């Protein structure tokens, strides 16, 4: 098991347009860290820098006590699973699995042994003679993972490996990957834009936005205490309500909404998770329902009152009509406060 350290990683292709800025990250031996962020946030670039496919403009990549920044990809002892699987289309599954071992000039018998073992652990035994074009998406994904594990690398890199699969299969494979990691306990960096994967797979998640780390932490910590307004909006589904307003004398105002307990004066952003908003009464005054999405297990409601807009996540059995007025209540301990300019989390007094 190896540790992985990224120290001051910076990457830019043109002056004043950095793709990554000052990324520092330490991944403990055997840990699975998920890098999550929206498209274009630089997460794949970061993964490719770790793999050695891209050279950083500044900063270092360390695996164990070895700086590998200037090493070629093949010399870093990392394995990567690509979004499109990157299986060699002209090779059979067996040859795809054996390719990294042949490059390493392992004896034939060892290669056969390790290919068989990988195939067994991933349930690929019956597919060894097939070409990638004869496989389903899930099978291709397994082969791609197999090609990574067969090398027994120090670090695993996953670049959105499940994003080409349908929702059901994605769920299944997510579980399989989690199980695989538990079994192999190889240090892993996993890139995804899917927060469900991030929340379920990683022991820690790194939220990236516009090339900067927004927050690093255990998934539930990040969910419960988002460090920035961006993280608050990004992590959680449906996303957190972010209401912009002004605090005066400890009272936050947004349209008819007035909430006591604001941690600072001036422009602020109030964050409330939809599931933490409680309906106190129906009819009368309050938020007017503008849209209702009944999902069966829950009902999402969009409501507004003057400039204040709110999304509520109610129980599946709740029936709400458009136009209906709802009086709501938000527990004080469920409020998140962010600076109006900086977007950084403010702790309530």
């Amino acid at each position, binding site marked *: 098991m190896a540790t992985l350290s990224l120290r001051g990683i910076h990457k830019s292709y043109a002056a004043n347009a950095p793709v990554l800025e000052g990324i520092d990250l330490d991944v403990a031996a055997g840990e699975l860290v998920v890098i999550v962020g929206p498209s274009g946030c630089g997460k794949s670039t970061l993964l490719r820098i770790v793999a050695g496919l891209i050279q950083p403009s500044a900063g270092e990549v360390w695996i164990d006590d070895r700086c590998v920044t200037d090493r*070629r990809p*093949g010399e870093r002892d990392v394995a990567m699973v690509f979004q499109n699987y990157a299986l060699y289309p002209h090779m059979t599954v067996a040859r795809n699995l054996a390719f990294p071992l042949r490059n390493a000039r392992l004896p034939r018998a060892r290669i056969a042994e390790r290919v068989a073992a990988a195939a067994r652990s991933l349930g690929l035994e019956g597919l060894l003679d097939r070409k990638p074009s004869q496989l389903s998406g899930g099978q291709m994904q397994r082969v791609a993972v197999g090609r990574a594990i067969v090398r027994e690398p120090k670090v695993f890199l996953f670049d959105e490996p499940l994003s080409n699969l349908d929702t059901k299969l994605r769920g299944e494979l997510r579980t399989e990957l989690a199980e695989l990691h538990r079994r192999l306990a190889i240090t892993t960096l996993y890139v995804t834009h899917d927060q469900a994967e991030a929340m379920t797979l990683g022991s820690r998640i790194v939220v990236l936005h516009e090339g900067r780390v927004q927050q690093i932490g255990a998934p539930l910590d990040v969910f419960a205490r988002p460090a920035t307004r961006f993280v608050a909006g990004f992590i959680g589904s449906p996303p957190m309500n972010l209401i912009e307003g002004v605090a005066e004398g400890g009272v936050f105002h947004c349209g008819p909404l007035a909430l006591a307990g604001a941690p600072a004066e001036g422009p602020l952003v109030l964050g409330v998770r939809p599931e933490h908003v409680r309906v106190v009464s129906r009819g009368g005054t309050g938020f007017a329902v503008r849209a209702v999405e009944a999902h069966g297990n829950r009902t999402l409601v969009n409501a507004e009152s003057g400039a204040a807009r709110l999304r509520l996540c109610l129980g599946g059995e709740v029936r709400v009509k458009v136009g209906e007025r709802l009086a709501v209540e938000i527990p004080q301990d469920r409020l998140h406060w962010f600076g109006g300019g900086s977007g950084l989390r403010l702790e309530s007094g």
Partner: protein
Amino acid sequence: MKTLARARAPWKVIWLGILAALASAQERVLHVMVEDPLLAESWELLGTLSREFEARHGGVRVDLLSLGGAAGTMDRVKLLLAGDVPLDLTRIDITELAAYREANALVDLEPYFEGDSDWDPLEWFPICLDALRDERGHLYGLPQTFTPYVMYVNLTLLDSLGIERPAREWSWEEFHAICRQVTADTDGDGRTDRFGVSLTQWLQALAPWIWQAGGELLDRSGRVSRWNEPPVVEALTFLHTLLHEEGVASDDATFENQQRRGLFQSGRTAFYGPVGYWERFRLRAVREFEWDVLPLPRHRRAATAVAMSVYVVPRTARHPELAYAFLREVLGGLPYQTRMGAIGNGLPGLIEAAHSAAVRNPGVPPASFDVFFEVLGEARFLPTLANWRKIESLCQAELEGVLLSGDVAPEEAARRMAEKTDAYLDLERRREARPRLPGGVMSAAVALALLFAVGLYLTRRGPPPARAGRAEERAAGAFLSLWAVGFFAFLLGPAVVTLVLSFCEWSPLRPLSDMAYAGFDNYTRLWGDGTFHTSLVATTLYALLSVPLTLALALALALLLRATSSLSSAVRTAVYLPAILSPVIVAALWHVLLDDDGLINDLLALIGAGRPRWLEDPSWVVPAFVLMALWSVGTQMLVFLAGLSGLDPTLEEAARIDGAGPWRRFVHVILPQLTPVILFNGITGLIAAFQIFAQPYVMTQGGPGDSSRFLVLYLYESAFRHLEMGYASAIAWVLFLLLAILSFALLRSSRRWVHYASRSVGR
């Protein structure tokens, strides 16, 4: 009033236009194919004389056309006549006259001469007119220029070496002895740089040696060759000795080399010949040495050959009587004949012109101008056979084996020439007995093919579309019909015609109705045709070498240039440039580069790799064309670049992470993904390689020997030089079948080695 006048002006213009159109409709245009306009001195005069002719003959306009001077000049007229271009008068070579006459492609001018009170045949050299008569004595044209073959001599060189100038009646032995005396390595680099003679090597120039030895090319009947007889072998042995055993003769004076500055022009050989009067034109710029002409050295008897260009009236002429008038008044007139002689391109056939001061031009070499007339008594034309050009080409290849490369023994060459000529003459005899192809067969075949195509469409089109789809189908049909017309008119139609033709014998100079049925003879003849075998081997060798090499080079260049940078796009453009140049220009350029003293040999010499004789040595000529093919890899490189840009970059990244080095990535990842592109480039390259034509046509004319007579060149020569359209069609079909089989085999094999991209996995 002014406004009214203005308003009327357009009508005036229209009326004038209509009147001019009516006038031009009545104007008779005389299309005259004359010599190269590069001979500006005669071209200008011809223009003036034509204007005078137009003034004398009201309503006539003379349209002077140029025959050009490059390779294939002789074939151009045939192509025009085969295409029914209405030429009224044209220049042809005397060796072709019999072919034209045999195809009934010329107007018998005898009635015109008989009705011409001013015509006096005694004003012309009898040897010239005799060659223009048929067996009945009918005259078919008039000479433009002619020349007997003589020997040019560098007097300054002989004098400087203290060698006595030879007398006019000199022998092979004297000639041989002087050659030995002159030959030397003057700069001591181990290579002979001064020779006795620059020996000309085309058949007309070689025939005199055979005649002097007492031999003949054919027997009197013209039906049996006499190549295999001792005098022919003796003559060939003599020349082989000069060229190869003793090395006292240089072989730079090939037919193709005539336009270039040879060793004689550079003062490095004592003699140059046998060659004609036209060299006076080339040598007029020589100031460095004094030169003269001599009759050819004699052996058992004195003999020389005559070359002649003549003007004839083709059967397609719209105005034969005017053509005759132009022939007599302008082309056969004293001013034009004199000018042609004065330029030095040939001697005028008109005696008065030939002896005029302007032609003799005293004070300008050669001092022994009269030699040209003195040798006429011993001068002869090559045999007048309809297919002499074919026999000439059959023998030329063998002669080059003896003389140019020197690797064929004279006896062997003589035997092979006899064999080839006799086989061909035998074929000619059988040809005469063939039945005519019934009229309408050709039209029926084309109609059948058309019916078949339409039937195929009707049976394969599927169920008729619903009402809503019909309009769409009609629109599609309208768009496709443009292509269909082109396909039927320019591809299927001609293909069917050639298929029928391949079972027939037909000269393109004859009407399509005049066709003889030959059964499978054209195909069986291919089986036994040595030239075809050589051609097939040369073409296959060329394809085998050029296709993989060009593929490899194009791929290597594409890999090098796939990065996007201003430098790589500049280099890409430079690499692609040759692909958009005309093959003729490329050929001309490479002719210079591949010269003995050209850039390529200079570079090879720098690394001590010797100086191959690219275009003269049979074993180097195919590699020379392969080298040229390598230079034109631009298109293939572009296709590879397109293929490379379409590759999935993550595969290469995956391979890098998997620890594959550059070579393993190329072999195991890039190359397999490029196999569809390799297959495409391979098949198109193979087809292009088997169709190579322009380069050998311009650069080597199939030589030396038959070593660069690639299939399409042989096909072209058969069709338009030897007028064997049926045989050419058979070659075309064999080539088509060969390419179809090879392409099919490649496609079949591709299942094993071509990897098409797997089902796309969206990124």
